[in-house]
């Protein structure tokens, strides 16, 4: 018994080890010790990029977040893409920009000889099966993760008449005609969205791509979401959940400029200071969204801070329903004049930030160059308040905590600066802080605050993606429908969106921007801030993109 007591654990351990050992075979390829290089001919090395979070899944159609898109962008192509470093469109899997005579029927010429990474041919039929797949979503997907389709197209196959998308026809092997039910400025700009990338029809079918199911607090996704098959410069190799890394390998059959790197690894490092230390130690070669206060220090250490052109807007939302004084244009103008935004830009925002004159950045068609910023003028603010009979008014002003956004690196500091300005103009401020996801976002939608700060990063280059998102509808966060002009503004926005002629449409948006800023002023457009990414000294070829659409096929590391 005594012997047994001592020997039993040892024997058990030995048994377990033997059992495991028997089924534990190394899966490495023979003859590649170290295994850093996959044994390919010319070695372009590996670039490891520090990601702040895990990609949600690898089917971009069901995603809206940057962590997912950064990874899927390298594996998929759309019909169109963004010119590197800009918000402008260029053809990708299409050979030319699509043409249309009436704005509703669009013909795309497709690139020949392109193959998906599973060997399937990319052709007109593949394009149509992708669009049909996106169009035909079940109820759970419609209300949940098929967000970008729902946002841009408005409806799905079961309400086909309400949808912007109508049909897709494969005219011949390399010609596709896509028909729309109406004209929209979002088309074809939206085709550069990663969500609408082309996936292998075979993989979509075999992976039961559309079998999304709502369950509990989230959604369950089918096999396709873990098995991405695209035409991009990289192919999926593995997602090592236990180690928090995603590994992509070069696609040697890529139709465009072949990747220089052998492998591209995304290492998930949620803590920002750790990302910075990893970069210093050389275990990662870059990461996204370095804190603006670190930019200089990072550059002093020899790194390259790649600043993206700002494609965002920070604004103050105002709710005239919650605080009736805000219904008066004079009061809203007074609030605007009270703000010293020049100082805000210089003290609280990264280098390259700018005071906004309207609710969109200047790269968007329809931006009105003639608009001037509301000047910082405390006296004018006071006299406007007096005229409106709102002297000494109280403003319930909320800002978010536990969050940092590209357009708003430090919400608390920004909010405090704004509050100081308001108080200098004689406005009493009731300041509330709420966690971003924990009272703030739901508070805005529930109309709980008089004033709040939030912003928007453009999805694609269309005026409607900015002012349309903000001010359309009966039920928007600005509560425009309590104003006499709320419906007019909505109707004008809808009308502008459906003008087929580009010059005419641009003119309509320019006029709307002026009206919004001068006559309506539903909220206060504050600033634009450029986000950045940082890469190590020996990384070359990454072009910062205003839509964070950086491509890694042009990247190289260590001069290789």
């Amino acid at each position, binding site marked *: 018994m005594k012997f047994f007591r001592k020997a039993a654990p040892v024997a058990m351990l030995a048994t377990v080890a033997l059992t495991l050992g028997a089924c534990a075979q190394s899966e490495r390829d023979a003859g590649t010790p*170290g295994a850093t290089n996959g044994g390919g001919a010319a070695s372009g090395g590996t670039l490891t990029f520090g990601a702040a979070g895990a990609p949600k*899944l690898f089917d971009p159609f069901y995603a809206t977040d940057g962590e997912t898109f950064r990874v899927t962008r390298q594996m998929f192509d759309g019909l169109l893409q963004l010119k590197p470093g800009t918000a402008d469109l260029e053809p990708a899997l299409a050979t030319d920009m699509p043409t249309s005579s009436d704005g509703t029927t669009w013909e795309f010429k497709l690139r020949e000889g392109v193959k998906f990474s599973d060997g399937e041919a990319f052709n007109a039929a593949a394009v149509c099966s992708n669009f049909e797949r996106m169009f035909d979503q079940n109820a759970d997907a419609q209300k949940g993760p098929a967000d970008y389709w729902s946002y841009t197209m408005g409806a799905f196959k079961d309400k086909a008449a309400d949808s912007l998308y109508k049909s897709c026809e494969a005219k011949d092997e390399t010609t596709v005609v896509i028909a729309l039910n109406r004209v929209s400025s979002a088309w074809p700009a939206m085709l550069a969205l990663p969500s609408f990338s082309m996936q292998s029809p075979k993989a979509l079918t075999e992976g039961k791509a559309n079998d999304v199911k709502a369950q509990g607090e989230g959604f369950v996704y089918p096999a396709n979401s873990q098995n991405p098959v695209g035409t991009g410069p990289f192919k999926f190799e593995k997602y090592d959940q236990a180690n928090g890394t995603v590994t992509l390998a070069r696609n040697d059959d890529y139709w465009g400029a072949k990747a220089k790197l052998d492998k591209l690894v995304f290492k998930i490092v949620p803590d920002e200071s750790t990302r910075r230390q990893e970069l210093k130690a050389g275990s990662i070669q870059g990461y996204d969204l370095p804190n603006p206060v670190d930019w200089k220090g990072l550059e002093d250490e020899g790194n390259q801070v790649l600043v993206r052109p700002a494609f965002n807007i920070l604004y103050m939302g105002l709710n005239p329903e919650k605080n009736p004084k805000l219904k008066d244009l004079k009061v809203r103008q007074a609030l605007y004049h009270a703000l010293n935004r020049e100082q805000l830009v210089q003290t609280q925002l990264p280098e390259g930030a700018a005071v906004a004159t309207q609710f969109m950045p200047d790269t968007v068609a329809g931006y009105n160059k003639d608009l001037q910023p509301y000047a910082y003028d405390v006296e004018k603010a006071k006299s406007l308040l007096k005229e409106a009979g709102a002297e000494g008014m109280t403003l319930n002003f909320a800002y978010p905590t536990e969050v940092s956004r590209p357009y708003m690196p430090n919400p608390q500091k920004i909010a405090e600066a704004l509050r100081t300005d308001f108080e200098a103009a004689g406005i009493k401020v009731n300041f509330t802080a709420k966690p971003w996801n924990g009272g703030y976002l739901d508070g805005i939608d529930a109309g709980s605050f008089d004033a709040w700060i939030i912003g928007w990063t453009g999805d694609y280059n269309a005026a409607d993606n900015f002012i349309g998102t903000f001010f359309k509808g009966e039920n928007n966060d600005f509560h425009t429908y309590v104003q006499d002009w709320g419906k007019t503004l909505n109707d004008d926005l809808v009308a502008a969106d459906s003008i087929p002629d580009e010059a005419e449409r641009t003119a309509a948006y320019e006029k709307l921007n002026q009206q919004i800023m001068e006559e309506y002023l539903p909220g206060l457009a504050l600033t634009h801030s450029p986000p950045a990414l940082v890469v190590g000294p020996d990384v070359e070829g990454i072009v910062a993109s205003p839509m964070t659409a950086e491509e890694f096929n042009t990247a190289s590391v260590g001069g290789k």
Partner: protein
Amino acid sequence: MLRFIVRRLIQMAGVVVVLSLLLFLWFKALPGGTVSAMLGERATPERRRELEQALGLDQPLWVQYWNYIKRVATGNFGPSNGVLPGRDAFEVFLSRFPATIELATLAILIAVLIGIPLGYFAARRRDSWIDNLSVMGSLVGVAVPVFFLAFMLKHWFAVELNWLPVSGRQDPTMDATRVTGFFVLDGILTQEWDAAWDALKHLILPALALASIPFAVIFRITRASVLDVVEEDYVRTANAKGLTSRIIRGRHILRNALLPVVTTIGLQTGALLAGAVLTERVFSYTGIGQALAIAIEVKDYPVLQVLIMAAAAVYVVVNLLVDITYAIIDPRIRTR
């Protein structure tokens, strides 16, 4: 003995069920959640309603809880919506549990292998410089927050000196085969020695930081306990009998002195889990602790629920193991 174990396991089941209800209600009472997490800036009152409808969050609480219990009963804890979106929350636990076990085991090993001998020697050479120095050292171990210690270790040994990796469990370019999920063990089993060594290197700093908590306590308890025991009659008797000092040390002093130490090690498991949240965060170590921290941040309630219930279960199991170990060391308990 068996009855005792069964009773404790039933208790554990009860604890987990009650905890699940409390957690469920608590999370429902908190503002924010899945909808805000999924939509962010894209949230509008309409989108919010649609999503709530799709997820059944617009139904009465008791219906939601009943649905939840029904799912859990079939082994389905609901998909994670932040830490590992789309995967079952229990899978998050499974994929990360080995990491934390690996870390905690090494930390406890370090604490025990250094703490017990040091405690013993400090007690036997009371008031010597070794004693004074180690008492002081253990004080520092207790007093310095793990978070800070972890950060300093990382800063000096990883970032400045570059001796050890900054974060993670394994070099992502290491082509390692996964068998058990314990990276060091996997490397040994598959004879991928470089992978095992690399995983071990990743463990050293976090384990040292995490070990600081149990080390200090184990050292001090051992020291105090040995000091008590050497004064006991049976030690004097053993000496008088002329037993060799080796037998006296092993059978009479250490064995008796270790009783409270074993209890302490058990109790330290809870502290270890709390410490793991901080240590794993600092080292971006993909274990339970980091998952907990992320889940709280992104309001991943299904994952939080599983992790907290699992932590409770682990705590109960470890205490059970402590009781069993106790019985092995102390024959008086066994006979009951």
